[in-house]
């Protein structure tokens, strides 16, 4: 089950407050680019969290290990 967008870990991930190394290239690239987007425009946080959760929802099978660490 993917945590809702209100889970605090999403915002911390987007803001770069959690230094997580993803095991898949697409996840690493996505989160890196979300961080850049947030840094340029902090008002985009909600949108970034939505994109992050949508990604996890689609690829939860390959992100199972990341999920365990990020949302323990």
């Amino acid at each position, binding site marked *: 089950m993917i945590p809702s967008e209100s889970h605090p870990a999403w915002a911390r991930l987007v803001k770069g407050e959690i230094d997580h190394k993803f095991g898949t290239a697409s*996840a690493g*690239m996505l989160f890196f680019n979300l961080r850049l987007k947030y840094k340029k425009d902090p008002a985009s946080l909600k949108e970034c969290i939505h994109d992050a959760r949508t990604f996890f929802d689609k690829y939860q099978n390959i992100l199972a290990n990341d999920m365990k660490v990020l949302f323990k």
Partner: protein
Amino acid sequence: MLATVEDVKRLLSEGKKLVLAADEKLLLSLPKGDWIGGTIPYFMTDEGGKVSRDKLFVNEMPAFLRSCRIALYSELELPQIAADSPNNGFSIVILPAFSKVHQDYAMNAASYDGIFLKSIAGWVSGIHLSDLGSACPRVFAGQTGESTDSKGVVMHVELPAEYRSNISVVNIFEQGEGDEISFPTGGFQASNCFINGEKKNFHDYVVEKKIDTRLPLVSDFCGTMVNVSIQGLLAKEKAVQLYAPVFEGVSYKVAKPVEDYAAKFHVAVPSKVVNPAFACNCILNFLYGELEGKKTGTITGPMTFGEIAYQLLNQTMVFLEIDKIG
């Protein structure tokens, strides 16, 4: 696999969907069909790295695919690529090097809507290095027979529900222990930079520090190492020309030297990966790693002027696998 023009014609007559890499004259000699292609004469083959102007590298798309659509994209249409890519499947993109589509994709792909929600891989077409200045990288859309040096070509492949595609990136480079480099503005040419936060000219820095320009700048994208390769020093402009753009707000380090490229790839490619649906590697790895006649693990494919795994990459191997679920 490497094939002759006759082999490729036979595959096309059998209705096969193909992604091709070859010298321009070979691609021009092919009939219309379900294929896309890009120009390049450098390959990694089963026998090792090879330069060939009379063979084509063929990636045959799986027979079980649900649908296959081929389209050309101008720079204005590029942001549509992710939206056009199937929800379950993948898209193979080929962009002509030095073109506006190449530049635009490199600068903006990461911000295309939904780009990381689709499987988008591909490469940048090129030319034989001895033809620099006299030939132009091109791409081909086989269904119409159109060839162009100013648009990207894409094959969108939809898979049945029981199959999944997965893109992997193999980067033999890692960040060195040296200075942290950042840039106040993004682009393919860098002059101003910050070295450990201190303003400096990047050209002067590379010269003063005697940086080996065969080593890329490496950035850590949340665990994925992303390279920017150095094309050359522009002494007059006091700038450095790059094969991919640097971005504002990103921190880079010069890569650690690599002694044996072939051995590094051999170790880095998981042994379970055999014959992926698509793969490519960088011409700079071919040249700097002296890969002619040497293998890079089990992976074969064109050696290109840029690789695409969602966004443009440099000095990297990219491959795409298709797995049956369950």
